[in-house]
């Protein structure tokens, strides 16, 4: 029994470190890549880490899944609230990711590149020149992968 408790404690530690590892990995990916799609993938990792963290918060070592059926005997349950939360958070994450990818497609159509540094430079240049002018025509070299 003692050994089981230690194992479960270890499991909890693994869950938390996994969650924070995913968050850090996502942040690192977003900071180190210049390609918009890769940055969005980094964002997905980050959100996955946040969701895993919420699951870990509700985890109980000696409990069953929080599903109550008629006639079932009352056993300690895993906290169902964080699970309900991450269902919502996952849906929101998917929606935001879809919007981000849709905007990425538009960006590529107009500018012909997905390199964020090049794109950011155009924004800054527009601030120094006249923002009333439409953005310059897309460059000739169309690259699919900027990294």
């Amino acid at each position, binding site marked *: 029994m003692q050994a089981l408790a230690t194992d479960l404690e270890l499991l909890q530690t693994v869950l938390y470190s996994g969650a924070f590892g995913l968050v850090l990995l996502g942040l690192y990916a977003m900071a180190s890549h210049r390609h918009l799609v890769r940055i969005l993938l980094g964002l997905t990792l980050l959100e996955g880490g*946040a969701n895993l963290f919420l699951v870990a918060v509700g985890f109980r070592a000696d409990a069953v899944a929080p599903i109550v059926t008629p006639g079932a005997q009352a056993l300690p349950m895993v906290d169902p609230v964080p699970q309900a939360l991450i269902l919502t958070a996952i849906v929101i*994450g998917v929606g935001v990711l879809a919007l981000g990818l849709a905007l990425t497609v538009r960006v590529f159509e*107009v500018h012909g590149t997905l390199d964020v540094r090049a794109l*950011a430079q155009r924004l800054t240049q527009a601030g120094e020149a006249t923002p009333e002018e439409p953005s310059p025509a897309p460059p000739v070299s169309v690259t699919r992968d900027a990294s």
Partner: protein
Amino acid sequence: MTDPLDSIIRQAQELTLLLIVVPLLAAFLLASLSRASELLGRIAGPVVLIASALMAGQLWLLVQRTGTVVVAVGGFPAPLGIVLHADPLGVVFALATALMALLLWPRGGPRVREQTLTLLLVAAGSGMALSGDLFNLYVFYEIVAVVSYGLAAGRDRGLAYVAAVRYLILGAVGSAMALIGIGLLYRATGTLNLAHMAALAPGTLDGPLGLAAFTLMVIGFGVKAELFPVNTWVPEVYATASARVSGLLAGVVSKLALVVVVRVLITVFADTSAHLVLLALGLLSVVSGELAALRANDLWRVLAYSSIGQLGLVAIAFAVPGAPGVMAGLVVALHHLVVKPALFLVAESWGGPVSQLAGAGRRSPWAALLFVILVLSLIGVPPFPGFWAKYLLLRGALGQSGLFQVAAAAVGVATVVEAAYLFRIVRLLYRADGERALASRPPAADLVPATVLASVLLVAMFSVAPLGVAVDGIARRASDVGAYVQAVFPAGVPAAFAREAP
């Protein structure tokens, strides 16, 4: 049979729900309506917004008589069910959201998408102002966030897409941070209901865990509140979006995010040093925003950076503990909520390098006059309401010690810097020897709402005393946590859920 107070409370509860439900429903019906009849589609949005504003006004009157009204949505009681609460602070921002959306209603050409997004913004904005459940606040915040990304990309120009996608990436990182912060709070207290948390939190959050949770939430909500260091999107979006969108984001969305932060700060972190986090970020926002505005060479960017500085002032004010801080923050926030959208509207046709503005004052005298009035109030020149905002802020900050004194000094310096770059533009506007003015003339469609906002400012100038009493009342009610907990749990605070000791 029925007590008159009971029926008033029931009416207030219904209004609280309708403030969220009506614009939400209208947003999704708008596309079909405008397909069925062009006229119907054109008037439906403004009609709904007028109705929302009237409902919020009525709710304001009712709440003055009843105290905080609590609605358990779907009949599920707190703390497991989600509660909405109508207190003066929330109602005032719901009212402001509806009115500003009406004034900044997207116009010109087929604008169904932007109009749908604006209605969604009103629904979710009212939700942010009125919800008493932390996760529900997060969901409403996410709706507002997605709406802002859509609005930022609204102008069909290549650079707007770039600005919007960069905004989305930063915003999504912020949301993930806020979610982790909420998770930490849930781990520490075992509840998501703000009132329940307020009753359970004392003593448990004054440590690294609580501080981390608050910092993550401030960073998360701070993306919309234009707080340092998550405000890099501000100049990009405001320089590419239309004035109405910039006005909505800088005027309304940023304030709603800060209202959520200050609510959490008051109810949950009252006895901790968490307010210092907000103070530090506000201080950095003021300094970085005003210095960047001084260097900017394009009117839209000047206004964007000045908006960062002003939001920093709001954050500093809200960081001052107790009712005086809430009052100062509210005044600065409401003042900026009126002034900045009006400035964006006046400047809508004045994009590009500021040197183009030379002599524009003679070409469009009314626009220049509005600009001068708004700028004087923004800087805080005495008779204007902006003076009272900065006075309250300085009084609140000087009443505290340590970093607050530094903040007060920084506010003084920031005001000088603000005056320097804004008067530079005013001088350009009225330059007589300038070459022919290159800037185009602002159209009446932009100047009418700007005039309305400027007259609100002038009316406020002549009714400082009653407004001060009203705002003081809002601040006192908002900082009375005991009464809030009592309103949500009239029968006593339930115990925390049985949780395994970690």
